[in-house]
């Protein structure tokens, strides 16, 4: 008899499996990718301490620990439905239906697309696709690339592409329109980059950061933003140029780019074509939560967390009995935080399953505390307002589920 099914073998899912299994629960982890680790395996960046965060090594460590605890990990298996039947959850997968009283959904994040003419051409890919091709599969995505969209993930991956010897020719913004939203507004982009100024690779961004945090200075800054961009690790970041169209017949041949004013409006007659054989679109991340939605769990839109997220407590419970969530499905943050949340969920499941009193309570409390401290020390934070987003969710949980039914806050369904 299986106690727990974990959906997603990323840092959250693996850490959750390890924590549950350490209390003697029988755990199966399912993931549709070819190997465990989730988006962690593509990650490679230098911490402020100078140490390298090597996602492949971290994933191998988690995988090994899970195996030692006899966690059953199945890769190459997709989950397409999740529903409850009396006391058991049915997890419908590409290899049949699995059941367990507890399910942890840790399906992570997906990338927001920014559609523009020509974006369906072969050679156009999301920025994350380039990360996986480079660091996981070790295949060159191309000889000369252009990144459309400037955000923290784009810079992290720009750096990874450069490390692997791939030439990224320039970074431009998408054309300002309802589809690109803030990603097409130079001032908004500058604002979000300044929030990550400690990571900003360019000395100019770093120097200007305090000055540019003031709204009116920022406007002036954008007005005088150098036409040829500011170099980020040697690659020009062009906040006053927008991609209008990706061109090519059978595959990418280049990008049609126009100059913009400080508000992102196209300056007529300024169009130019830059050659490229690959294009990466960086639209940012959102929680990949469809499975939890089909299970009937209520959701809340919290932009600071990246979009619609399932209702959940700090112990990673959802309002549905036996259903837990952890990692980026609860809000967009870095891998270390996903891992800490997974550990919390794993202990919370052990507690719900009736594992020994005092020890589990203490470990669960420590795990909740650990999520907060890892968050405070995070080297990469995708949204500067993350704390406020997390607070909104915990207040929502308190008001909806905690007050009268503290002992048994989960709703029975099915």
């Amino acid at each position: 008899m299986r106690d727990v099914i974990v959906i997603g073998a990323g840092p959250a899912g693996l850490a959750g499996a390890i924590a549950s299994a350490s209390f003697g629960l029988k755990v199966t982890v399912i993931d549709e990718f070819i190997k465990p680790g989730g988006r962690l395996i593509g990650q490679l960046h230098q911490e402020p301490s100078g140490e390298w965060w090597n996602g492949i090594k971290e994933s191998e460590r988690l995988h090994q620990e899970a195996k030692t605890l006899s966690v059953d990990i199945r890769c190459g298996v997709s989950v397409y439905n999740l529903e409850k039947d009396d006391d058991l959850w049915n997890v419908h997968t590409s290899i049949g239906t699995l059941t367990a009283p507890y399910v942890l959904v840790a399906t992570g994040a997906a990338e927001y697309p920014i559609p523009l003419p020509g974006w369906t051409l072969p050679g156009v890919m999301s920025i994350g696709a380039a990360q996986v091709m480079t660091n996981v599969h070790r295949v060159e995505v191309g000889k000369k690339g252009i990144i459309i969209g400037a955000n923290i993930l784009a810079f992290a991956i720009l750096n990874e592409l450069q490390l692997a010897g791939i030439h990224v020719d320039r970074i431009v913004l998408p054309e300002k329109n309802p589809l690109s939203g803030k990603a097409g507004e130079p001032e908004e982009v500058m604002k979000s980059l300044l929030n990550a100024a400690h990571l900003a690779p360019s000395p100019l961004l770093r120097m200007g950061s305090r000055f540019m945090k003031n709204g009116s200075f920022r406007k002036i800054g954008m007005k005088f933003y150098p036409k040829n961009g500011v170099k980020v690790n040697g690659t020009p970041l062009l906040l006053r140029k927008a991609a209008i169209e990706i061109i090519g017949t059978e595959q990418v041949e280049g990008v049609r780019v126009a100059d913009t004013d400080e508000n992102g409006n196209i300056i007529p007659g300024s169009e130019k074509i830059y050659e490229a054989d690959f294009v990466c679109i960086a639209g940012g991340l959102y929680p990949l939560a469809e499975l939890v939605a089909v299970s009937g769990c209520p959701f809340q839109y919290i932009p600071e967390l990246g979009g619609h997220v399932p209702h959940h407590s700090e112990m990673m419970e959802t309002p549905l009995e036996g259903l837990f969530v952890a990692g980026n499905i609860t809000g967009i943050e870095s891998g270390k935080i996903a891992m800490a949340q997974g550990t919390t969920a794993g202990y919370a499941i052990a507690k719900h399953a009736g594992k020994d009193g005092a020890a589990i309570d203490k470990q669960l409390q420590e795990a909740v505390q650990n999520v907060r401290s890892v968050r405070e020390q995070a080297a990469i934070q995708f949204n500067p307002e993350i704390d406020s987003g997390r607070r909104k969710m915990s207040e929502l949980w308190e008001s909806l589920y905690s007050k009268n039914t503290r002992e048994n806050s989960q709703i029975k369904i099915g």
Partner: protein
Amino acid sequence: MTRIINHPILGKLEDRKAVPFTFDGKTYEAFENETIAAALLANGIRKLRVHEDSGTPRGFYCNIGHCMECRVTVNDHANVRACLTVVEKNMVIESGKQHPNIVKRMVEQQ
């Protein structure tokens, strides 16, 4: 395109076994445990299919199973995601083809 053999942080790619497969009737080589999308790209192939209706070319987009842009036919099994499927020895892979749009043709004929 080529493989990234040497990497300053991730180290050197170890030697892996070559695995033959066919794509649209031509034989190529993948490495063991490589996805169809990665193996084809390493062989210089970006185009995985054409759009069923318009016939315009498509390649992988997200590379992690979310977008379905990379669907190909594998050993007669249609709509398989090339970015999540590992190449196996002598696998027969076909690109996605254009389908006749009967309704559109009927409208055009009127």
